[in-house]
């Protein structure tokens, strides 16, 4: 297992290096620069030149590139060209918020998806199965921000059970913080639950016809033990993989939820940085998001290997 982890971290570092370079170049290709974004439309050419000098944008690209990696290796995520604040001051809370949103959404998806999938598989072909399958297809089909808008309208305005409060951190007011999380997590969880349900159902249907299930039954152990210990346990492998992939897509999908619910996560921080062409922040956020996605994939693979002893390194 350690060899596997070593190889994967090596690959992760390589991946991050490629992504870092990619975003460094991509961002500078976008028309418009931070000086213009900071000074607005009224600034004249001379003022712009001054601002660019102050932001050291005129240095040769190679030097900026080397500086970027050098600072990164010393743990300095750079300073925002626009607000003058160290990225390290703002990024952690944003990263935390996105992680919180995504992990809770996945937790809900697993907590709801697996039992639903299990029920549908065990009663394949009957009413419960059709209801669950139909529901999961519906869950997959509804666009995220339509759900978000409707939930916001329903529970914040018309029936203010969860009125739209201002954001508070967990350690300030845990209850309010969690109440704020309910609607965004629910929005993300709907799609994720659908995916987990479908995956669990398919995996269990396939495993149920496996030989070792018949062997288990032949030893006379109780049916619910056969289901839990043999069928469900073996279905976890594909489900865990699906959860890993789903978590990665969830991270990408938070931008709409963060926007509609005003949840200050990584995506909204990134979009704000892009619209002000704040290079250091964009680079830091993209790398952070990439680390998140790589970590999630690695966690899913490790979990997969723990659950399935015969998994060979893929």
């Amino acid at each position, binding site marked *: 297992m350690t060899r596997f982890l070593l190889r994967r971290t090596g690959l992760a570092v390589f991946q991050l290096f490629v992504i870092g370079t990619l975003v460094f170049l991509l961002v500078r290709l976008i028309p418009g620069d931070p000086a213009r974004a900071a000074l607005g439309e009224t600034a004249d050419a001379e003022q712009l030149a001054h601002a660019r000098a102050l932001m050291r944008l005129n240095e040769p690209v190679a030097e900026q590139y080397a500086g970027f990696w050098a600072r990164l290796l010393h743990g300095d995520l750079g300073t925002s060209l626009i607000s003058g604040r160290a990225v390290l001051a703002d990024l952690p809370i944003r990263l935390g918020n996105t992680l919180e949103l995504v992990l809770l959404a996945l937790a809900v998806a697993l907590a709801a998806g697996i039992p639903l999938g299990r029920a549908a598989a065990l009663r394949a072909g009957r009413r419960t199965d059709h209801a669950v399958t139909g529901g999961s297809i519906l869950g997959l089909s509804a666009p995220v921000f339509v759900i978000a808008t409707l939930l916001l309208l329903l529970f914040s305005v018309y029936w203010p059970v969860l009125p739209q409060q201002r954001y508070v951190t967990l350690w300030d007011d845990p209850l309010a913080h969690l109440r704020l999380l309910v609607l965004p997590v629910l929005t993300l969880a709907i799609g994720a639950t659908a995916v987990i349900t479908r995956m669990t159902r398919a995996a269990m249907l396939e495993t149920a016809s496996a030989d070792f299930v018949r062997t*288990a*039954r*032949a*030893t006379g152990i109780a049916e619910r033990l056969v289901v839990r210990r043999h069928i469900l346990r073996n279905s976890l492998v594909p489900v865990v993989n699906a959860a890993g992939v789903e978590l990665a897509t969830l991270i990408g999908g938070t931008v709409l939820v963060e926007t509609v619910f005003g949840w200050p996560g990584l995506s909204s921080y990134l979009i704000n940085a892009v619209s002000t062409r704040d290079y250091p922040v964009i680079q830091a956020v993209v790398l952070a998001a990439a680390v998140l996605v790589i970590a999630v994939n690695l966690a899913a693979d490790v979990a997969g290997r723990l659950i399935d002893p015969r998994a060979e390194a893929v």
Partner: protein
Amino acid sequence: MTEPVLSLSDLRVDFGATPAVRGVSFDVRPGEILALVGESGSGKSVSALSVLGLLPRTARARGSIRLAGDELLGAGEARLRAARGAEVGMVFQEPMTALNPVYPVGRQIADALRAHRPMPRAAAYERAVALLDQVGIPEPGRRVRAYPHELSGGQRQRAMIAMAICCDPKVLIADEPTTALDVTVQAGILDLLRELRERLGTAIVFVTHDMGVVADVADRVAVMRAGEIVEQAPVTDLFAAPRDPYTRDLLAAVPHLGRAAEPDPTRPPGADAPPSVEAPVLELRDVTAEYPGRPGRGRHRAIDGVSLAVGPGEVLGLVGESGSGKSTLGRIAVGLVRAAAGTVRVCGHDVTRASRRELRPVRRRIGVVFQDPGSSLNPRATIGAAIAEPLHLAGLARGRAARARVVELLDAVGIPSAWSARYPHELSGGQRQRVGIARAIAVRPDLLIADEPTSALDVSVQATVLDLLTALQRELGFACLFITHDLAVVEMLADRITVLRAGRVVETGTRTEILGSPQDPYTRALVAAAPVPDPERQRHRRTERHTLLAGRYAG
């Protein structure tokens, strides 16, 4: 005569509209081994499974299954569950998939135990270790924590037997327990079953399609065909004087090791003499080949310095157990696997380092037949297209000429040419193998490589395919490298035989030398282990094998 412990009377099982078992009745007495023998689709497995009500939901069973006088058919789930494992233990065929891959073997045995005898987990584990030891698994203390994929095929089968007998059931039903195992490992399992019968007095229902195994282990035999028992008799009476015509045909079709030792009138005289191998069609000299082993364990050397040659018109039998590297050799000959060292010459061309372009002319001279009829033909292509493909690739024929050649080939292998538009899944296993052969000889090859062409087929179908091969070989005169693990089959075809073990040639010689008087101890053990469809001779060979085994090493 003691009371039968298990008796089926007029058992009928239907899957929807199609009947699978049409009125099967038999009894099994304690300490008796009843063999249920028949070809695939004869209903032998369905009958075995219906005893414990393990049939899929779509099945409907009628008739009576009495276990020590107690009716099981139609009994409630509770009664059935009480019987499963406690009174009747079951062992299945596929060792790879019959055990839960995510739990250690010991844990699964402990669960089976505690299903009927509530006991603390530790005690169940101890009992599991004892059981593993009892079924002959080395170092049971360590192996109890092993996962199924960490055990060999034979060990997994022994673990499953341990699980089946953990609650000392009165009856053990074994559904083709040794079919997927090598001959030597199979012999070990059969010894274990016999020992259980003597020591615990367990009644055993042994389901198989292998007449050799029946002769080796059964007391009484029930021959099944299309859901019915056509004949039931003690094993010696059945082999000596089969009454039912189907049984007679079945026994005749089974390749009989040693019987072919008498000179075969149809073979040209002197065929036995070691042919002069001066212009060999295929020649391997000191060939070694390696596979990238699992990470961390370095490269696994599959072939280690093998030299062999196949003369024109000659059939060389390449015999070895699974993992011996015989299939790899076949792929090296065709150029699918590159030899790490040594030289490979086909029709005089050195192809060891040949690029794909250089290999092209040589490949036109080689035909290949694969083992698994299910996967040897492209499911998305018609059999006509499959046969025509080598012609296109070799540039021998196009369009109408190719179609004519295909019709010719289909007739040659006994398939109606009208079927050329059919897809592989519309043909039976035997028919698919015949198409495979037609494809192989399409380019009129000088060398045919047959990698276990018949081992996935039923005995009767196997016989017809082997006859076809010999006929074609005599008519077209190609050299043939015949790869198999079944000594009886190789005896029917091969002029010379090479025995392979763990990538090294153990012994080479003519058919009579190898099968008649094997020199190398491994060959001798291999020949001794292969069951012969004749109870008398098999009992004699068994005692001889045991003395041999007692002498040197465990099976």
